[in-house]
């Protein structure tokens, strides 16, 4: 055991090293939201040879950006190269409020329910700034939102209640159990408006997400999208042998592959 410890420590140290996306392709700014009064740090990963004069770039808005930005930016570049297609701008939204405030649609035991204001911030303040300052594509189909867990819940909420904002949704382990599956009610209420739009939706989960809450609402949401949205490009994946946190990065990779293959 004593001999094993240094090896394990080295392995853990090496695997703890965070990939950092090329700083020369990264820009950062702060933005004060008049919708909810919070200040957000936004990081933007630019594609190689970024030239807004000649290219219309799509954008992936990444929730829990402080944790996910580098991984998404690195892999977005790799996967777009693999598919020989233009890369996107990866827009990381840092924490202005706690995620249980910004990412939850209603006030319940687990969250404060300020998602509507957060979505207004994205729609009315962040996206216009990206369009003005970075010259990104203004078409709905060129905007994608990516979130995990409560971030996945917010992505699902964007789908049901702010469907004109994004054309693509990468929902990873979405907390659809939240507030007695309130998202299923929103989906039902807004279905007739939303199912006329073209959508690209990737739903990912860890195969071994336990806790008695993830699997059944995930399947219910997936079936509703599959049977009620004729214009949808829908992907579903259960990451083998992994749980809620462990499946996040593999599902980001699957989701990015799905997006670049089907956009």
């Amino acid at each position, binding site marked *: *055991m*004593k001999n094993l*410890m240094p090896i*394990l*420590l080295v*392995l*853990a140290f090496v*695997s*703890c090293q965070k990939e950092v996306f090329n700083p020369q392709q990264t820009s950062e700014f702060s933005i004060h939201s008049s919708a909810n009064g919070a200040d957000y740090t936004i990081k933007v990963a630019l594609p190689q040879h970024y030239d807004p004069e000649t290219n219309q770039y799509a954008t992936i808005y990444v929730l829990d950006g402080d944790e996910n930005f580098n991984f998404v930016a690195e892999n977005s570049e790799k996967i777009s190269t693999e598919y020989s297609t233009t890369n996107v701008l990866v827009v990381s939204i840092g924490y202005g409020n706690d995620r249980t405030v910004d990412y939850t649609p209603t006030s319940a035991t687990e969250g404060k329910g300020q998602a509507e204001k957060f979505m207004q911030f994205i729609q009315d303040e962040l996206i216009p700034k990206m369009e003005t300052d970075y010259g990104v594509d203004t078409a709905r189909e060129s905007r994608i939102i990516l979130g995990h867990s409560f971030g996945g819940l917010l992505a699902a909420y964007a789908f049901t209640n702010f469907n004109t904002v994004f054309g693509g949704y990468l929902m990873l382990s979405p907390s659809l*159990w*939240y*507030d*007695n*599956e309130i998202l*299923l*009610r929103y989906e*039902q209420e807004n279905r007739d408006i939303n199912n006329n739009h073209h959508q690209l939706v990737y739903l990912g989960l860890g*195969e*071994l997400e*336990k*806790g*008695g*809450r993830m*699997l*059944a*609402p*995930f*399947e*219910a949401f997936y*079936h509703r999208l599959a049977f009620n949205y004729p214009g949808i490009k829908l992907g579903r994946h*259960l990451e*083998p*042998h*992994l*749980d*809620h*946190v*462990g499946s*996040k*990065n*593999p599902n980001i990779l699957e989701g990015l592959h799905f997006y670049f293959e089907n956009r």
Partner: protein
Amino acid sequence: MKIINYISIFFLLLNLSAVNAQNASSFKIHGTYPVRTLTLEPAIGLNIWTMGDLRVSNVVQWNIKKRLSLISYSAYVYNNSMSRNFNYIRTDYDYTLNQKFGVGTSLYGRHSSHTFSLLAGIKYDAIKETLVNPEFEQVTASVHSVSPDFGLMYNLKKGIGKYFFTYRMVIPLYPYPFKSFDITSVDGNLANIAMEFGVGVRL
């Protein structure tokens, strides 16, 4: 930060085992602790990270030499015992079966022995949930998964009679690092760290 906390706790637990080993190695071997060919050690316990996963397990240890054992570890885990009806999501079943085999080495004290073993085998997980919210359609979903399973086990035997007290801790080495070298996957290891207590019998 959460990941760093997980890692810290993971290695704290590994270190606790290492400390036990160091203490044990300082014991003098008086030759009084009975080393029998075969022991059976049924036990009950829980997964310490989740607390709601209850375990029934059995170890069969065959001491082929004083310091070398072959070990079979079997377990049934009743997962998520505390929250089987949450927000109109009913857990129909959620359990895990483990079967691992491995080799171990033992250190002996006057009244106890400490066995450290490396195990490998398979794990079967079965989960079935049903959405029973009266507002929506009923949807049932299930997962049946077979995966490899690796782990370290520390096993304390206390008592020199035919029957003895047994305590063990099992630390999984799957999914991290065998399936994935991504440190976030260590969450799956932590969720299955087990502590078990029971009464063993020497045959």
